[in-house]
C-alpha cells in the first residue's frame, strides 16, 4: 500500500510541478508579457491580438508538447525495457528516431515541406519494419535498423546537404518553433496510448517473471510481446515526430521511477510518464532560457532541448551503470 501511496503522491507532485512549468513557459520569452495579460488571454477576455498569438499559438503548445512528448517517451521506455528485458533499452533502441530523420530528409528533398507528417510517416515506417524483422530479437534488430536508416539518411545528406539544418531538430530533439498544429496532432495519441499501456501492465508484470512463468499464469506470451512492442513503437514514433529524438528521457525516467516505486508496471507506467513529462518540459525551459541570453542566439534556432537532456542524462546513466555493477 505504501508504494501505491508513494506513486499517487509522486504523480500529484509531478502534476503540480507541471503546472508550475506551464506558468513559467507562458511568462518567459523574448516578448515581455505580464502575468495579467497571459491570464486575460487564457480566459478569453483579451483583445490584444499579438498576445493571443504568442500565448495560444506558440507558448502554450510548446509546453504542452514538451509535457506530452516527455510522457510518451518515458512510457515507451518502460514498455521497450519490459519487452527486451534490458534495462539499457530505450525508445531510440527501436530505430524509430532514425526513421523520423530519414522521413524528414527524404520529404525535403522531394519538395514536400510537411516535415511533421514526414517525420511521423518515417517513424511509423521504421516501427513497422522493426515489427516485421525483429520479432525474435527486437533489441538487436532495432539497433541495426537504426544504423541502416541513419546511413541512408547520411547518404542523402551527402548528395544534397540542404536539409541538414531542418533534420538536426529531429536528430537532436528540439521544441523550438513548434506551434499549435503540432499539439493538435499529438493530443489524440496522448489520450489513448497511456491507457493502452496501463491496461497492458499486468501482462508485463507476468512477462517480467520469465516466459515460462508467464505462460503458466495464462498470459498469451507471443501476443503480449507484439502488442506491447506496437504500443511502445507508436508512442515513440508520435513523440519523436513531435519533439525529435530527445536523448535519455526514455531511459532515465523509467529508471528513476523504478527506484521510487519498484517494478510493478501498474505503478511504473503512470509514474514514469509523469516524471518524463516534467523532465522534458523542465529541460526545455532551461534550453529556452539559456537560448535567449546566448550571444548570437538570433542566428541559430535556439538551444535544442536534446542538448540539455543529454548533458543532464549522461551522468545519471553513468550512475545507473555503476549501481548495476555492484
Amino acid at each position, binding site marked *: 500500500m505504501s508504494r501505491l501511496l508513494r506513486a499517487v503522491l509522486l504523480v500529484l507532485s509531478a502534476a503540480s510541478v507541471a503546472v508550475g512549468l506551464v506558468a513559467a513557459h507562458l511568462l518567459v520569452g523574448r516578448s515581455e508579457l505580464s502575468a495579467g495579460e497571459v491570464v486575460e488571454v487564457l480566459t478569453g477576455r483579451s483583445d490584444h491580438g499579438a498576445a493571443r498569438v504568442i500565448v495560444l499559438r506558440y507558448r502554450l503548445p510548446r509546453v504542452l508538447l514538451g509535457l506530452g512528448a516527455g510522457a510518451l517517451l518515458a512510457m515507451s521506455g518502460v514498455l521497450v525495457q519490459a519487452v527486451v528485458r534490458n534495462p539499457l533499452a530505450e525508445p531510440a533502441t527501436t530505430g524509430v528516431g532514425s526513421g523520423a530523420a530519414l522521413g524528414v530528409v527524404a520529404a525535403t528533398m522531394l519538395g514536400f515541406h510537411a516535415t511533421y507528417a514526414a517525420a511521423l510517416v518515417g517513424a511509423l515506417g521504421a516501427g513497422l519494419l522493426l515489427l516485421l524483422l525483429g520479432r525474435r530479437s527486437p533489441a*538487436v534488430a532495432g539497433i541495426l535498423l537504426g544504423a541502416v536508416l541513419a546511413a541512408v539518411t547520411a547518404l542523402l545528406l551527402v548528395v544534397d546537404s540542404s536539409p541538414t539544418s531542418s533534420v*538536426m531538430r529531429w536528430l537532436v530533439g528540439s521544441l523550438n518553433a513548434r506551434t499549435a498544429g503540432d499539439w493538435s496532432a499529438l493530443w489524440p495519441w496522448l489520450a489513448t496510448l497511456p491507457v493502452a499501456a496501463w491496461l497492458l501492465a499486468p501482462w508485463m508484470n507476468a512477462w517480467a517473471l520469465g516466459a515460462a512463468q508467464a505462460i503458466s499464469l495464462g498470459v498469451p506470451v507471443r501476443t503480449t510481446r507484439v502488442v506491447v512492442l506496437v504500443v511502445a513503437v507508436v508512442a515513440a514514433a508520435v513523440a519523436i515526430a513531435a519533439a525529435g529524438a530527445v536523448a535519455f528521457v526514455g531511459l532515465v525516467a523509467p529508471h528513476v521511477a523504478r527506484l521510487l516505486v519498484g517494478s510493478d508496471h501498474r505503478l511504473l507506467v503512470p509514474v514514469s510518464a509523469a516524471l518524463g513529462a516534467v523532465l522534458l518540459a523542465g529541460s526545455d525551459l532551461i534550453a529556452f532560457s539559456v537560448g535567449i541570453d546566448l550571444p548570437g542566439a538570433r542566428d541559430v534556432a535556439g538551444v535544442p532541448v*536534446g542538448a540539455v537532456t543529454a548533458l543532464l542524462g549522461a551522468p545519471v546513466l553513468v550512475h545507473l551503470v555503476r549501481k548495476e555493477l555492484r
Partner: protein
Amino acid sequence: MYRSLVVAAGAAALLAAALLTSLAVGAATLSPPELLLALTDPQHPVHVSALHVRLPRALLGAVAGAGLAAAGVLLQDALGNPVAGPELLGVSSGAAVVAATATVLHLPVPLQVLPLLSLAGALAAGLVVVLAVGPGSGPGASTRVVLVGAAVTAACGGVVVAVIGLGTEGDVVLLMRYLLGSLSARGWNDLAVVALGVVPALLAALLLTRSVAALRLGDHVATGLGVSVARVRLMALLVASLAAATVAAICGPVAYVALLAPHVARAAAGTTSTPLVLLVAAPVGSTLLVVADLASRTAFYPVEVPVGIATTLVGVPLLALLTLRGRPA
C-alpha cells in the same frame, strides 16, 4: 592450419589488387605501367595526386583496416562476445567529442594538432572504460565492459549532441562527415600517426593471441593452463583501445569493419583459433576498408560519400545474418 595460411595469402593478394585498383581509379584513371610512371616521374601530370593523395589514402585504408580487424579479434575473443567491437570501448565517441568541440566552437587549434587532440580524447575514453572495468575476471567481466562502454559512449554522445546543437549549419555539415568516418583528404602525416599506433598494436596482438585463445576456453580452464586471466584480458583491452583509438582519431568511427573482419576470417579459414583468425582477419579488414573507400569515392563521383556509410550498408545485413539466426534475445 594450411587452409588458414592459404586464405591469408589469398586475402593478401586481394588486398594488393584492391590497393592497385584504388591507386589507378580516380579523376584520371591510369593503366598499371602509367601508374608506375606517375609515381616515379616528378614531371608526370598526375605525379602529385598519385604520390601524395592516392597512395597515402590507400595505404591509410589498409593500415586502419588491419588495426580495426585486430581490435575486433582481440575484443571478441577476450570478452567471449561475438558482437564485440571497438564501439564498446567508447574510443570513437571520445574522439568525436574533441572533433565536435573544436569544429563547432572554432577553437584556435592548428590543423596538424587536431588529430593528436582527437587521439587524446579517444585514448582517454578507452582508458576510462578499461580502468572502470578493472582487471576483473569471472562471468561478469564481459557484461561489465558492455555496460561501462555503453555508458561512456552515451555520455560522450550526449556532449556531442549538445555541441552540435550550438553549431551553425556549415559547422554541422562539416562535422557530420567526420562523425560518419572518412578517409577523404588524408595525407602522409595522417598515415604516419595511424601507423605509429596500429603497427605496435598489431605486434602486441600477435604476442597476446595464444593467451587470449586460452580465455576462450573459459576462465577456469585458462587459469588451469597457467594464464593470468585478469591480466591478459586487461592487456587485450588496452591493445584494442590503442589500435581503435588511433584509427578513430584520424578516420572517425569507421563502422563495422572491426566487427565483420573476424567473422569473415573465421568463416573463410574454417577455424576459430585466435592466432590464425588474427592472421586472416588483418588482410581481410584492410581489403574491406580499401574497397569500401574505393566504392564510396567512385559510386557518386564527383561527390564523395563518407566511407562509414558504405561499411554500414554492407556491415549491417551481414551482422543481422550472423546474430539474428540465433535464439530470441
